[in-house]
């Protein structure tokens, strides 16, 4: 009896009845230290960022978040336009990347012939392996000019009555930045979605098919609800990437300031402003303000992460209620 419990129980201190082995103790200590160190690091990092930003927090208060200003000469700083840039680029990127990722994942797990699945899947995952600075360079040299010469004039011609698609085409701006972010998110979310769809129990989908459901009905009725919480988590992982990406965005967003209705206009995100201005800040207040931006980014990421976990949990609960 004891042996069977030992076999089933996870290795570690719970395996009662066995003498504690030195290896186990060390292993326990190491794993516990690793997780505690991570926790400690997050707390320490947040504390440090906020402590460093204190000068700017005292000078500008919460008004920093709602004011548009980044003037190192007059020592006046604000974050609203960067928050706007971060939100808009991330939102557009998710808007495009989510359906695209789900479609890719469904194609590769449910629809594509078997011999295509492997190579195409690998190729999409290879996209994730491209360093962001290389993607940014491609954005500068190839993609940005293409957006300015073809995509933006096209959008303006057909959708120009909507203010966001009305403006002077520019190779650096919100739209190219959002599209480069999309490219960075798709491989992550699509490979997670693929994993999720491949885990849908075949009895469920076969059952649905046996009941006379079409392939689309099976996907809509079985695969998507089953993978739901996972998809939300995958999308939010992509959102985290979109919020935090600095290098590739810096290269294609055009370091603009102010809030422009047009998506073609140059703008800036929190992460990109931090990356481009931290080195060479001319005053203490500017450094503090850059760290204030970092603190805002930290808080936004934290909020979205908590929101993500809540959504996932609620999804799982409702699924539990159904089955």
């Amino acid at each position, binding site marked *: 009896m004891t042996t069977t419990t030992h076999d089933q129980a996870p290795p570690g201190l719970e395996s009662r009845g066995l003498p504690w082995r*030195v*290896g186990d103790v*060390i*292993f326990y*200590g*190491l794993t516990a*230290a*690793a997780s505690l*160190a991570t926790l400690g690091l997050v707390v320490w990092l947040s504390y440090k960022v906020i402590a460093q930003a204190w000068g700017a927090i005292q000078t500008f208060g919460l008004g920093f978040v709602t004011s548009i*200003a*980044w*003037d*190192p*000469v*007059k020592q006046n700083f604000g974050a609203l336009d960067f928050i706007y840039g971060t939100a808009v680029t991330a939102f557009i990127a998710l808007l495009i990347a989510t359906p695209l990722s789900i479609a890719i994942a469904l194609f590769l797990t449910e629809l594509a012939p078997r011999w295509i699945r492997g190579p195409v899947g690998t190729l999409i995952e290879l996209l994730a392996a491209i360093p962001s600075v290389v993607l940014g360079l491609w954005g*500068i*040299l190839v993609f*940005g*000019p293409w957006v*300015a010469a073809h995509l933006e004039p096209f959008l303006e011609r057909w959708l120009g009555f909507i203010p966001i698609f009305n403006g*002077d085409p*520019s*190779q*650096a*701006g919100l739209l190219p930045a959002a599209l480069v972010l999309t490219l960075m998110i798709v491989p992550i979310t699509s490979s997670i979605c693929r994993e999720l769809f491949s885990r849908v129990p075949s009895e469920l989908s076969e059952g649905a098919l046996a009941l006379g459901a079409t392939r689309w009905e099976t996907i809509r009725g079985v695969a998507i609800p089953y993978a739901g919480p996972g998809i939300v988590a995958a999308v939010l992982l992509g959102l985290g990437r979109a919020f935090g990406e600095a290098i590739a965005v*810096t*290269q294609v967003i*055009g*370091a*603009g*300031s102010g809030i422009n209705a047009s998506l073609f206009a*140059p703008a*800036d995100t929190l992460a990109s402003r931090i990356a*481009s*201005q931290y*080195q*060479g*800040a*001319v*005053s*203490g207040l500017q450094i503090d303000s850059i760290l204030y931006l970092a603190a805002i980014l930290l808080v936004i990421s934290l909020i979205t992460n908590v929101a993500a976990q809540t959504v996932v949990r609620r999804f799982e609960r409702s699924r539990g209620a159904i089955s």
Partner: protein
Amino acid sequence: MKKGLILSAALLCAAVAAMTTAGVSGATVSEGTRANAGTLTGAGATFPFPLISKWIPAYDQASGTQVNYSPIGSGGGIAAITARTVDFGASDAPLSPDQFTACKGCVQIPWALSATSVIYNVPGAPQGLKLTPAIIAQMYLGFVQKWNSPGIKKLNPGVSLPDLKITPVYRSDSSGTSYNFTDFLTKTSPTWKSKVGTGTSVSWPTGIGARGSSGVTGVVSRTTGAMTYVDVAYALANKLKFARVRNAAGKFTLPGLRSINAAASSVGKVTGNGEISIVNPAKSQPLAYPISTFTYVLAPTSSPKAVELRKFIYWAITSGQQFGPKLLFAPLPKGVLAFNYRQIKKIQG
């Protein structure tokens, strides 16, 4: 069993080692770069890099000291010398008072002299388009928006200018070239002075930002109607068209050795922290190019490599100047040299 034990012990050691090295790595790196007395490490401005890269092999031959220089931008150079991760920094913009305080005992020595050119990508426009400081300021303020606007046409009779939108391009990183360019606009345009001002990074009213000289040049070369400011050596090397800019005497001049020299001849005695501005020099210099600029080396007054630093900087401002003219770096004026000799003496062990 035993293997497992050894492995976990090794892991523990590795983890502890990783934690401790994380704490002290900054210190070990900087010590590492200083260990060899025969080398000097520097970082900073990209502007003087063409010249410094000529200096490095020549100085190695002359003295046997190996100099390493990373062109990471003026802002990066100031940060690096402030943290003392390098033996010297370089910047095109003089240090701000806050930066001087943060640097804790740094000297600033003007060690090269060149000019910032205004480049443009306008189909049909010739090299040497005539521009006044006021027009350049209005372009960057967004007041003059077309290349065929009357103000530009009047300055360039006979040149066919297209009906094309002007896209001003600026540096998104902290840049000494931005400092010199905005310094020039501040000194020539009251509107610019009140609305924007002078700085390594400012609040640009309009246009597109890009990183580094190569970044802004890239945007300009791919955008018809775009314009920007880069050091003239860079513009020449990349065969870009640059403007004639009107100086205080009313003459339109191209950036060149003679016009840079003329601008620098206005410099008399240098005092204080060594900050020299020669943008928009007085009317008495009709040949002067109005956006000429000094670029600085930053050295700590207390350095374990004081002897090597003194020797290298002395060599750079004397023998090193002969490499300048080919790259459009003009020789340093006498008043500047006299100041520099005094500053070099302040670098001590």
